[in-house]
C-alpha cells in the first residue's frame, strides 16, 4: 500500500510538474489568467495524461524501443484530439476560454515525460496512479497560479469579487504577470519543501 501511496503522492508535491519539474510551462503561463481557466486546463491535461499513461503501459511490450517516441506521440495525440472534439461538442464555453491550448496538450512535456519515465517501465495500475498524481499536482498548481493572478489582477477569485476590479493590477492578467507570479510561487513552494 505504501508503495502505491508514494506513487500517487510523488506527482502532487515532491515532483510537482509545475513548481518542481518546471514542465509544461507554455500551457501553465498561457491559461492561468483566472483560477477557473487554470482548473479547466489542469483537468483537461490530467484526463489525457491518465488515459495515455494507462494505454502506454498496456502496449509497452509491443512497442520496439526504436519507435517508442512516435508510438507514444500518436497515442497522446489521439487522446488530445478526442478530448478536443468532445469539448467542442459538449462544452463550447470551455473551448472558447481555452482555445488553442487544448490541442497544444499534445506537445506538453509532462505527458511524454511521464510516458517515457514511468508508464513505459511500470505496470498498468502504477501508471494509472502516476497519471492521477501528476494530473492532480498539475491541476492544483494551475489553480494556485490562476487564483493568485486573478486576485491580484481583477480582485476576484473563481469570479467572486473580493475587492473592486479598479484596484486590480492589470499586469497580472497579462503575460508578464504570469512569469512574476510563477517565479514567486516557485520560490515559496521551494522554501516550504525545504523546511518540511
Amino acid at each position, binding site marked *: 500500500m505504501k508503495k502505491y501511496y508514494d506513487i500517487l503522492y510523488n506527482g502532487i508535491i515532491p515532483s510537482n510538474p509545475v513548481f518542481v519539474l518546471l514542465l509544461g510551462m507554455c500551457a501553465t503561463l498561457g491559461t492561468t489568467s483566472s483560477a477557473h481557466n487554470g482548473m479547466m486546463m489542469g483537468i483537461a491535461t490530467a484526463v489525457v495524461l491518465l488515459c495515455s499513461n494507462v494505454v502506454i503501459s498496456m502496449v509497452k511490450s509491443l*512497442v520496439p524501443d526504436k519507435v517508442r517516441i512516435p*508510438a507514444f506521440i500518436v497515442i497522446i495525440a*489521439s487522446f488530445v484530439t478526442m478530448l478536443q*472534439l468532445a469539448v467542442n461538442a459538449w462544452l*463550447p464555453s470551455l473551448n472558447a476560454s481555452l482555445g488553442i491550448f487544448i490541442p497544444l496538450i499534445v506537445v506538453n512535456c509532462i505527458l511524454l515525460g511521464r510516458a517515457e519515465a514511468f508508464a513505459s517501465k511500470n505496470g498498468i495500475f502504477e501508471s494509472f496512479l502516476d497519471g492521477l498524481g501528476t494530473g492532480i499536482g498539475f491541476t492544483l498548481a494551475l489553480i494556485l497560479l490562476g487564483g493568485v493572478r486573478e486576485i491580484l489582477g481583477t480582485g476576484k477569485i473563481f469570479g467572486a469579487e473580493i475587492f473592486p476590479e479598479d484596484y486590480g493590477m492589470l499586469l497580472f492578467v497579462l503575460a508578464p504577470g504570469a512569469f512574476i507570479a510563477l517565479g514567486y510561487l516557485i520560490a515559496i513552494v521551494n522554501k516550504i519543501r525545504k523546511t518540511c
Partner: protein
Amino acid sequence: MKKLASTLPNMIISLGSITVIAGALLGWMYSVTKEPIALQAQAQQQAAIAEVAPEFNNNPEEDKWETTIDGNTFVVYPAYDNDKLAGAAVKGVSMNGFAGEIVVMCGFEADGTVKDYRVLQQAETPGLGTKMELWFRDPAGARSVIGKNPDKTSFYVSKDAGGEIDGITAATISSRAFLETMRNAFEAYREYEKTQAAKK
C-alpha cells in the same frame, strides 16, 4: 512479457497497427461529435441573431444574404415582422484588430440605428481590447454605439478626425477595428435594403 526487438518488420507492424487503431478511434469520435458540434455552432448563431435583431417572425437564417466589403464577407440576416423589414442582424468581420480576426454580430433597426451587438470572436489583448463587448454599450461619455445611426453619427474613434465614438482607453487599434466592422455591417445592411427595394 519480453519486449519486441527493434527489427524493421517489428517496427513497421507495431507503429502501423497503433496508427490504424488510433485512426479508427478518431474517425469514430468524429462521427459521434459531428452533429453536436454543428448544432452548437448553429445554436450560438441563432442566439446571437435573436439577441441583437429587432423582433421578427421569419427565419433570418433562411433569408440570409451575403456581400463582400473590403475583401471580407458580411452576412445579413434580415428580420421581418409580418413581411415588413424590421431590421437585421449582420455578421461582420474585420482583419484589422490587434490580434487576429474580430467577428461581430451587429443588430440594426429598419432605419439603420444600432440596436445591439455581440462580439462572436476576438483575440485582442486581455483587459484592454477584450473590453469591447461591454465598452461600446456603456452609456458613459460617447462610448456607446447603441441607439446611434451610422448615417448621422460618425462611427470613428474620437481620436481620429471627425470621430464621434470614444475608443477603449489604451486599445485604439481594437476600437478602430470594431467600429470598422460596425460601419461595414451598416453598409451591408444598406446594400441589402437596396436589393430588396429593387425586387419590389
